[in-house]
């Protein structure tokens, strides 16, 4: 089964790209593929991941390990379970410095306290000496962000960094990531199923459906002029406070079972604009002008 097939996007330095899709559309698998951390028995069967001109898929494991956490970092969805429960928070943050900057333990722990302070954790000296279960979810996610940005990576992959948090904390965390990114100059791949989050944080947005990217455009363009029927459907699903009250739109049908993907365009069984060729031909992701890419026969 191909969980991800036909994902194509590029990112510039300092840019932020939002990767949006339903649960099971292959967002996280895409992220893990970039890091080359697909858990066995899964594996990458083809394609390339170019990072600063080099194909990461061809790198030896040892070199790849040095890239992880140093030049490409990742933040995970659930801060409650992303920290090792048996080590103090400060030690864990310090680990990044020991691993990638070869500082000794004492220096690293001092730096980690500074780092915790910089991500807005109050009383960092005390917090650094506590265990993860003694910190709140928001604080833990701040600590995770601190670790991810510790070595000033070129690319930050944030896999639903705010999904597990309260709405009020979500906004704070997004703001924090934005500030730190500006400071460090890191590019960010933000994975989420929340269009509101990407609208606020990302320069460009890529929409994924059933393992493929089906539309990619600048955020403003995408919200104003969505071309793919699925993207439209998604945008119609968002309740709006300024629109007249009516029943929310729903995309009919279900996400396809990827062990038996539909022929042609994977969205065609749910698409209201489908034509005969949608069932047989696979649409390619094409530039329709103004850096707006879409994979739909209707726009050719």
């Amino acid at each position, binding site marked *: 089964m191909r969980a991800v097939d036909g994902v194509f996007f590029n990112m510039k330095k300092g840019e932020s790209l939002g990767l949006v899709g339903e649960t099971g559309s292959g967002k996280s698998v895409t992220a893990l593929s970039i890091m080359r951390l697909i858990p066995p028995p899964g594996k990458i069967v083809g394609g390339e991941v170019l990072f600063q001109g080099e194909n990461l898929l061809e790198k030896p494991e040892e070199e790849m*390990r040095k890239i992880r956490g140093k030049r490409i*970092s990742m933040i*995970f969805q659930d801060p409650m*379970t*992303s*920290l*090792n429960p*048996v080590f103090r928070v400060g030690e864990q943050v310090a680990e990044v410095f020991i*691993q990638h900057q070869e500082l000794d333990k004492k220096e690293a722990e001092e730096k980690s306290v500074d780092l915790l302070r910089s991500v807005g954790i109050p009383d960092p000296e005390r917090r650094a000496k506590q265990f993860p279960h003694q910190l709140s979810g928001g604080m833990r996610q701040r600590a995770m962000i601190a670790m991810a940005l510790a070595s000033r990576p070129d690319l930050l992959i944030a896999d639903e960094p705010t999904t597990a948090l309260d709405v009020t904390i979500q906004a704070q965390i997004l703001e924090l990531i934005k500030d730190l990114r500006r400071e460090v100059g890191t590019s960010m791949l933000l994975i989420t199923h929340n269009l509101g989050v990407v609208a606020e944080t990302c320069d460009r947005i890529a929409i994924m459906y059933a393992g493929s990217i089906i539309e990619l455009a600048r955020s403003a363009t995408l919200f104003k002029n969505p071309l793919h029927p699925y993207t439209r459907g998604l945008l119609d699903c968002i309740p709006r406070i300024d629109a007249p009250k009516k029943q929310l739109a729903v995309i009919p049908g279900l996400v396809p079972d990827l062990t038996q993907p539909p022929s042609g365009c994977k969205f065609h069984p749910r698409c209201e604009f489908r034509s005969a060729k949608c069932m047989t031909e696979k649409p390619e992701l094409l530039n329709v002008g103004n850096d707006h890419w879409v994979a739909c026969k209707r726009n050719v």
Partner: protein
Amino acid sequence: MSQFKEKLGSYFGTRRLERLATLNPETKLTLSLLRKSPLAIAGISMVLLFVLIVIFGPYVTPYDPYKLDLSSRFLPPSPAHLFGTDGEGRDIFSRVLYGARYSFAAGMVPVFSAVVMGVILGALAGFKGGKIEDLLMRITDMFLAFPSTILAMAIAAGLGPSLTNAMIAMVVVWWPSYARLVRGNVLSVKETEYIEAARATGETDLNLIFRYVLPNVLSPIIVMATLDIGGAILTAAGLSFIGLGAQPPIPEWGAMVNAARIYALEYWWLPTFPGLAILVAVLGFNLFGDGLRDVLDPRLRRV
């Protein structure tokens, strides 16, 4: 004087106090959990008594445990000979105190070696998976397929009767259960998000195993090892009793009971006191292990 105070202040300085303050609730919780279980307290007391005897026993024994004195054979317990004397006139109290060292070694060494072996092989199998795991686990299954006591007896008999060989036999019999325990726990910890997150920061496999996986599977290992020490003492005594372990005149408890077998009906104190010593040591470690399990159980801790 003020200088001294300053020094004292830096020694018991803020860092230290803070550390005490952060540890305190956990320690308090541990103590309160222990206090609620009188059996655990009893177990700890027995283990402590046992350890004290191991350390200080030989210095407080009134008699030489090996010295034969044919004029004082089969003396019943009395103030001069607290546990009486045996068929060769040796003081049983002194011999029991001395014997604690052999039993201690017979309990600790095999279990410790088995834990080390089991942890290495189990962690390797659980963490690496694939062919390595299959191979290691099938070997483990092979050992587990035999009844452990019979296998230990066969190995001890094959190597020749001595306490060292009995201990080797016990390691061979014991490590597979640790390998299984560790592998199972490693498998579940390996899937957790903090391992994935650690991988994403570029940790080496070795570091992942030692700093992330093993510390999180430590408590079941500790509990099982503690319970096993009791079992190991019993097995060692058992092997000695049937003549496959420590050989006379070594004052090992099992061997002493064995030597006293033929006099058991006329002179009850000969087998009784070494037997009681075995009972106390084994029971102590078992109760202590049970108590540890309760204290280390996170479900009980977080209430």
